[in-house]
């Protein structure tokens, strides 16, 4: 019998690598741009500047938190539009619970803070599970299901806060949100831990692997014996939890829980994931890409203020980077199709 000689063309590997790293390339280009401008116009450095690095990383933390969960959702070919208000809900609940723990339960500031943070995170189980259930079991398209939850979480957040921002008086909570031992902001430390955990989940576990498979082909994942309903539930649960963490941290930072805190961040979170190399069609994306994507957005917004450019350029700049990212992704698809980066 004739032995089949099947050869896989691997000649495009360098091209693939570059495309995979595009978010980091963007980031480097942006930094070079701002660096030259800052030196030319103000005689100062943009990036060899601990203060700027601290400011930008803190700035990126909360949107990144949302983007981490969104990365899983988008890789699975879904979208989570409820994240912004889930974050707001968590922020308000964390504020309330920290207050109640101190006033009613008589806890000290540290346990009261932990109680608030935990409550803020735990409350996001509900929207996460409902999102997952709608999408997995009732076959509601993610866009619609999470849009519904966007409304529900929004209303709940306002109700929970009595329609107001909820002030917190807890010195520990404020320390978590604002201090920086050894020059490293606590928020950034927490973000780094979250990044590592999420990277591990996505790249090293079956959960992550199956998320990629689900995004590429629901049928393939299902035929391979993966319980795609449970998987979908877990993915939306996880994205709710990261939004919960984001909300609880926001409360620490601003000493107040705000229902609308996350609303302006939802689109930034999706943009970060897309700039980071994920495709909205699902099946591709990485945590490192998302980290770069969130930094790209933060650097643009911070950098343009730093070099004193008319503020409306920010929108144009972020929009342009998103468009370029999507174009690169399209071009890449034409060459090699989707991919998983490990």
């Amino acid at each position: 019998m004739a032995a089949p000689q099947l050869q896989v063309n691997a000649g495009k590997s360098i091209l693939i690598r570059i495309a995979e790293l595009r978010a980091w390339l963007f980031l480097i280009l942006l930094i070079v741009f701002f660096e030259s401008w800052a030196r030319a116009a103000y005689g100062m450095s943009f990036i060899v500047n601990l203060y700027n690095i601290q400011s930008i990383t803190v700035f990126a933390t909360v949107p990144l938190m949302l983007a981490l969960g969104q990365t899983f959702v988008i890789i699975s070919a879904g979208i989570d539009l409820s994240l912004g208000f889930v974050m707001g809900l968590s922020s308000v609940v964390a504020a309330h619970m920290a207050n109640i723990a101190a006033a009613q339960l008589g806890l000290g500031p540290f346990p009261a803070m932990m109680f608030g943070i935990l409550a803020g995170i735990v409350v996001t189980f509900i929207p996460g599970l409902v999102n997952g259930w709608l999408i997995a079991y009732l076959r509601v398209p993610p866009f619609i299901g999470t849009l519904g939850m966007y409304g529900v979480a929004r209303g709940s957040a306002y109700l929970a806060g009595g329609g107001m921002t909820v002030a917190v008086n807890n010195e520990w909570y404020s320390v978590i949100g604002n201090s920086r031992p050894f020059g490293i902001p606590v928020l950034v430390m927490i973000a780094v831990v979250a990044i590592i955990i999420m990277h591990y989940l996505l790249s090293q576990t079956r959960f992550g692997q199956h998320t990629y498979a689900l995004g590429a082909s629901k049928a393939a994942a299902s035929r391979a014996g993966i319980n795609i309903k449970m998987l979908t539930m877990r993915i939306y649960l996880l994205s709710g939890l990261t939004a919960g963490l984001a909300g609880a941290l926001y409360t620490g930072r601003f000493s107040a829980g705000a229902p609308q805190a996350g609303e302006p961040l939802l689109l930034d979170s999706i943009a970060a994931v897309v700039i980071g190399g994920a495709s909205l069609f699902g099946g591709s994306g990485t945590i490192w890409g998302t980290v770069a994507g969130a930094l790209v957005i933060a650097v643009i917004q911070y950098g343009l203020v730093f070099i004193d450019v008319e503020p409306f350029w920010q929108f144009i700049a972020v929009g342009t980077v998103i468009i370029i990212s999507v174009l690169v992704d399209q071009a890449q698809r034409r060459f090699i199709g989707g991919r998983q980066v490990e």
Partner: protein
Amino acid sequence: MSERQPILSVRNVSKHFGGVQALDKVSFDVFPGEVVALAGDNGAGKSTVIKAISGVYPYEDGDIFLDGKRIAFATPQEARDNGIETIYQDLALADNLSIGANIFLGREPMKRLFGILPAIDRKRMAEAAKETMKRLDFHVDRLDAPVAAFSGGQRQAVAIGRAMYWNARLVIMDEPTAALGVPEQRKVIALIQSLKAEGKGIIFISHNLRDIFEVADRIVVFRRGENAGERTPGTVSADEIVRLMVGK
């Protein structure tokens, strides 16, 4: 032939969808190292019978025996666990994953990171992929490339490799060559022959009589959900198979 025990015996299996009698008392056997082709016009019931075997649908009447034991799987996963692998033209692979990841999809090997954290053992997946593909005479330069980069025939090779790796005893292929160009069809036929050489039982569904004649040991013809005849390629002409399919 009949002294040996068949891997699979389908006996008088019936199934209907609403008013449509998709299967009406169909029977056939598959022996080790044998390729059984299912032939029949559109809607004859070929896909339905293999879905009844592989746990996609329950069947109503009759019996299916695997190695002499009656089976009625509730899920495709259960069928897989019992050594029945099904290969579809389009639905089987996750395009964005490597060969190894596809072979192991849903059953990934795990190792311990730093001795504690469970993590997917990608090295083992890659090695297994390389070995399996070698068994199929399929040479790959980059084992981490996503299978989206592959041609249709190469993708079938991965799916077949998966069945082989997991030591399936019965491999079911529903129109594996349907979307392929002629050279790629040849390659898949060759792959089926490698599977056969390993002693698997194979059910092969195709509308392409040339493929059927080339690879099948026996041809089971269905017509409107019923057995319309059984022939061996050496003793029958293509015309006669077509006559059986359409009922004269």
